[in-house]
């Protein structure tokens, strides 16, 4: 089980470690499935959509799109059948918060999916769980079966006349499948290549039908919002980003694990108050949002970690992954690692990403070997900028962020490599 650091506030993780996730009765005893009951008995679909819209809930997968709006677009789409997809293809390096929810409280996700289905008029749901998450897959399968036995899934749920069923799609190893349209192609049994957008999923998604696709953590917020209300939800976090975020902390801190905190908690608070401080050496940098995220230096320790505050600085919160690195870390070595990841995971469909990721890795590798040229820095930036503007999906659009922020803080260290010396002694020059 993933260690949960002492969360200051628990909405998504309220049952984490408290209930046996394989026993539905334990979930029900904590008030589980009450939200489904409430929605089906007391609310019409439009009211459900309005409530989620009013809560200000934003997509927790990283893009922070307003969830209620997504639901509204899909509810208004005329084509049928409609689909609900839960994106549990958690592949962003450093991210393991969805796994915590999947393993620790699967019924909460099912409940969110049923409510989403009712709200938009969908009767079918898929959860796309990455193939490496075998425990999650097994637990979720059990949870589906138990929910069916209890009449929360299937036909005529709780005598309401509403039908909804869920099937698991097991991934087969591909980072890009976390991109929503690639994920849909993958469910359809194809190669997981991202599609051209528009059209967007609410009008044309899975099998070209109206589709809501939400992240695990997003769906885990639904039942609490339905039961406790929008004012309650909005009382946490910031005005622009209400609620909590589940962060995944890894790297050179004393305690690694997941932590749920109100949106807007700072990096300094997480590291010093919850993760027990740095392991041994002094803080050098942190990467927030996974490999596709930015490097934050010491001056960013007090920036609130929410979508809006980071967005205003041209940074991203992304999935909420936080990788903390101390002074013994070499920025060039890490950058090479990040770019190797993008190169390996590029699907190859669009040229800027396919060739760009290859070139970026070549350039960084030669810098790390002391064979780089001064111009290489500009060439890297220029390449990553072109990729950002011309790539089909977020994969090719992302490398600019880690590259430009590494250069913002540690350009001198990169230049040192070009001159033939790795200051930390990590790179063998």
């Amino acid at each position: 089980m993933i260690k949960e650091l002492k969360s200051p506030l628990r909405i998504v993780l309220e049952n984490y470690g408290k209930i046996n996730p394989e026993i539905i009765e334990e979930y029900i005893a904590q008030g589980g499935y009450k939200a489904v009951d409430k929605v089906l008995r007391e609310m019409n679909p439009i009211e459900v959509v309005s409530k989620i819209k009013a809560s200000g809930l934003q997509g927790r997968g990283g893009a922070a799109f307003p969830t209620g709006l997504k639901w509204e677009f899909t509810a208004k789409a005329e084509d049928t059948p409609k689909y609900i997809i839960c994106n549990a293809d958690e592949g962003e390096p450093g991210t393991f918060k969805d796994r915590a929810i999947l393993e620790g409280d699967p019924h909460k996700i099912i409940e969110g999916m049923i409510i989403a289905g009712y709200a938009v008029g969908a009767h079918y749901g898929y959860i796309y769980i990455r193939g490496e998450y075998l425990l999650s897959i097994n637990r979720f399968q059990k949870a589906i079966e138990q929910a069916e036995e209890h009449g929360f899934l299937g036909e005529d749920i709780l005598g309401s006349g509403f039908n909804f069923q869920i099937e698991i799609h097991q991934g087969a190893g591909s980072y890009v499948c976390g991109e929503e349209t690639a994920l849909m192609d993958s469910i359809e049994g194809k190669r997981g290549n991202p599609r051209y957008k528009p059209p967007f999923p609410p009008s044309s998604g899975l099998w070209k039908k109206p589709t809501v696709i939400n992240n695990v953590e997003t769906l885990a917020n639904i039942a609490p919002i339905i039961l406790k209300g929008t004012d309650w939800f909005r009382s946490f976090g910031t005005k622009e980003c209400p609620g909590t975020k589940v962060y995944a902390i890894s790297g050179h801190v004393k305690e690694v694990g997941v932590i749920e905190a109100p949106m807007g908690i700072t990096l300094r608070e997480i590291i010093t108050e919850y993760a027990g401080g740095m392991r041994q050496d002094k803080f050098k940098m942190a990467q927030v949002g996974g490999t596709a995220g930015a490097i934050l230096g010491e001056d960013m320790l007090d920036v609130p970690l929410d979508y809006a505050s980071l967005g205003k600085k041209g940074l991203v919160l992304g999935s909420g992954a936080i990788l903390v690195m101390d002074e013994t870390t070499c920025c060039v070595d890490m950058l090479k690692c990040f770019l190797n990841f993008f190169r390996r995971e590029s699907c190859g469909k669009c040229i800027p990403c396919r060739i760009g990721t290859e070139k970026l890795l070549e350039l960084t590798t030669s810098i790390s070997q002391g064979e780089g040229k001064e111009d290489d820095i500009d060439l890297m930036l220029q390449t990553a900028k072109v990729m950002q503007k011309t790539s089909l999906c977020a994969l090719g659009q992302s490398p600019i962020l880690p590259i430009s922020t590494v250069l913002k803080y540690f350009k001198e260290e990169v230049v040192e490599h070009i001159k033939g010396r790795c200051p930390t002694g990590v790179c063998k020059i």
Partner: protein
Amino acid sequence: MKLRDKEKDIIALLSKAQRENKYNYITEEKLKLIAEKAGLSYSEVYGVATFYSLFSLKQRGEYVIRVCDSGPCHLMGSKSIFEVLGEELNIKVGKTTPDGKFTLEETSCLGICDEAPAMMVNEEVYGNLTPQKIKEILKRLGERK
């Protein structure tokens, strides 16, 4: 009320075919059979099978060792994990031991960053790896029949 036609759910069929194979790969015969049953061309199914990193069309070892080299694991020392595995097994990344027992692969993030450095051996997860731990795991697996 079924969501998908099981015969057409080729990713699940490919996973199953590979799981059932002792050497962790999908044989050409199986690939053809899956294509035929799904009503798809061989090339379409081949395209799918070669897209996903968990699938292999080449014979691998009984145990496929997949070591993560993404950010958190790299930071926590995955390099030394590769070194130890390479020395112990005497193979390079991507290769299989001559006795057909082990294949060593590099993988992207496995989502077990809370136990970095980490790896998977077939369907089992191993975290907080150290050179000593690796040697013990290999010994245990090597003795397994």
